[in-house]
């Protein structure tokens, strides 16, 4: 009888263990879902400011976690503006001045096109498990989806968001909500995913809202109009010369 009870308890513990992956495992699953060898996407940003709303469209080519190239397609004022990320360096190109300017230092904290995203966000390593330690702290339901709640803490000091809190869809391993904090614990930004879609076997956010809580306005809606994974991208795209083309 005692042996039977022991086996039942052991089996229960194993089941419990199997149901609760570690924070690290969940974060690696999130990264695996997000990161591809390369991606090409067309996106729309709707920036809801304090006085007006602006809509921008851009085409981006992204290779792994280190290289990215974005060209703005509209509105007319921004058309032809480009951004190039090569590892930890970022350049922007302004067609009206024909100038290529390296963004560094405090300029990285500035808003991208007036949105709630900063250049620092653009430069961030998208593979979160590279830069954060993760801990599973609970479970919550977000918009009818069961989610793991992860608390992330940066592995190094010099980072834009020292702590993050993620609500990750248990089934799709897709973060549905995210809160980003400064080291002092102050909430800086909030990300809410409003719509998801499935592309090439991956679940991906279709519409999401970034909100810089220190900024007025209703946030920036980021909409992925189209996305392709693992498409060949010529190497010249990720060169400074391509900025002026």
């Amino acid at each position, binding site marked *: 009888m005692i042996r039977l009870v022991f086996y039942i308890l052991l089996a229960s513990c194993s089941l419990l263990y199997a149901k609760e992956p570690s924070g690290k495992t969940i974060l690696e699953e999130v990264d695996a879902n997000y990161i591809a060898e390369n991606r090409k996407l067309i996106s729309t940003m709707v920036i809801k400011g304090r006085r007006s709303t602006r809509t921008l469209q851009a085409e981006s080519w992204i290779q792994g976690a280190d290289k990215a190239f974005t060209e703005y397609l509209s509105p007319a004022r921004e058309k032809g503006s480009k951004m190039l990320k090569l590892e930890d360096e970022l350049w922007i190109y302004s067609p009206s001045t024909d*100038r290529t300017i*390296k963004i560094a230092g405090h300029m990285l904290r500035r808003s991208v096109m007036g949105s709630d995203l900063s250049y620092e966000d653009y430069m961030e390593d998208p593979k979160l498990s590279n830069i954060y330690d993760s801990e599973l702290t609970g479970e919550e339901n977000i918009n009818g989806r069961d989610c793991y709640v992860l608390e992330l803490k940066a592995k190094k000091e010099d980072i834009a968001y020292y702590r993050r809190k993620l609500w990750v869809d248990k089934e799709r391993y897709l973060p549905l909500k995210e809160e980003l904090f400064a080291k002092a614990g102050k909430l800086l930004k909030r990300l809410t995913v409003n719509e998801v879609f499935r592309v090439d076997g991956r679940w991906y956010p279709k519409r999401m809202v970034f909100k810089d809580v220190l900024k007025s306005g209703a946030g920036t809606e980021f909409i992925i109009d189209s996305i392709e994974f693992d498409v060949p991208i010529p190497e010249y795209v990720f060169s400074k010369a391509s900025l002026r083309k």
Partner: protein
Amino acid sequence: MIRFLIKGLLRDRSRSLFPVLMVSAGAFLTVFLYSFMKGTMDDLVNSNAKFDTGHVKIMTRAYEQLADQMPNDLALLGVDSLLERLRSSEKNMVWTPRIRFGGLLDIPDERGETRAQGPVMGLGVDLFSPESQEVDILNLQNALVEGKLPQKNNEILISEEFAKKLGVKMGETATLIGSTMDGAMAIHNFKVSGTVRFGITAMDRGAIIADIKDVQYALDMPDGAGEIVGYSENMLYDDDTMLPLTQRFNDNFLRDDDEFSPLMLSLSQQNELGEYLDLVDVFGGLIVLIFVVVMSIVLWNSGLINGLRRYGEIGVRLAMGEPKGALYRWMIYESMITGFIGSTLGTVLGLAISYYLQYTGIDFAAVLQKSTMLISNVIRARVTGWSYVIGFFPGLIASVVGTMFAGIGIYRRQTSQLFKELEV
């Protein structure tokens, strides 16, 4: 009698020299300190009025709350029509729109790569409209060191010190990297047409002046301006005229439920300048008060010493039957003469040095290197009508009051004791 008194004073220098010197020193210090403080504060007010506050300034309510941050996302829109209304309703004022902005000024090399870069504060002003008086208000023609004032679009003036630091030459391209009204990055090419010396450290460190239309285009602010400043036609600030004007405007335009409705503030309501102006008045009064009190005490003491020295003389005069009241008045007349002479000398000297510093000034550039205040590096005194009287009358009063205190001793002398004292 006066001639007799003066003779006495001149012949007995110990009776006149020290009080005259004391009163002169006090009157001189009062005149000089008042004039120098007046000059400093006037300069602070004028510099602020020229480059920042105007005599009145119009902003949105939201902009005003964060004005130090130059929040152009909260700027006034529909500026042309507002200016039109202001120019027709307040005809005795000069109205002009301005955009203040910050950013980086980037100087490219021949390949378009960054050659030099530095943080810059910019002022977009109306340089080209026929009715604009900005060139005169900002004294740009006189401040020009090299090159010429902007003649066409996208030409800018850059502070001389900043131009040297960046190594930028006339006619070269300077790219402004700033923020648009929507918060996006603004990148705009200008051409340097001239360098200027503002004489204000905060601006000489790194400032540019561009035409407001170019700035509106660069920062994507069509028909927008951070502020509209107004100046009285005679360019003299008068709080009694400006405060009713602000009240009138705010009654018509300011809406509690609209954070972007325009709000007008007078110079004294901005940058705590009203408090500074009040402070000058308080300090002016304080200087006079301290002067009168301290001088009275010093001259009282001097009178007592003098009374001791003239103990015998006063005793003889009393013994000979001179009334105490007459003797007391006599001493007061003497003090009036020494006070008059001392005050005149002190005031003349104070005015002379103040006038000299009004024209030459003292260069505080080395001290103000890290200053962010809009105040000239060369601080000058300013002689006003008050400078002529602020030292003179207190000098006269202190001299008389000091003697009045010291002379009270006369009434304590007992006639019966006088001969005994004289025998001794």
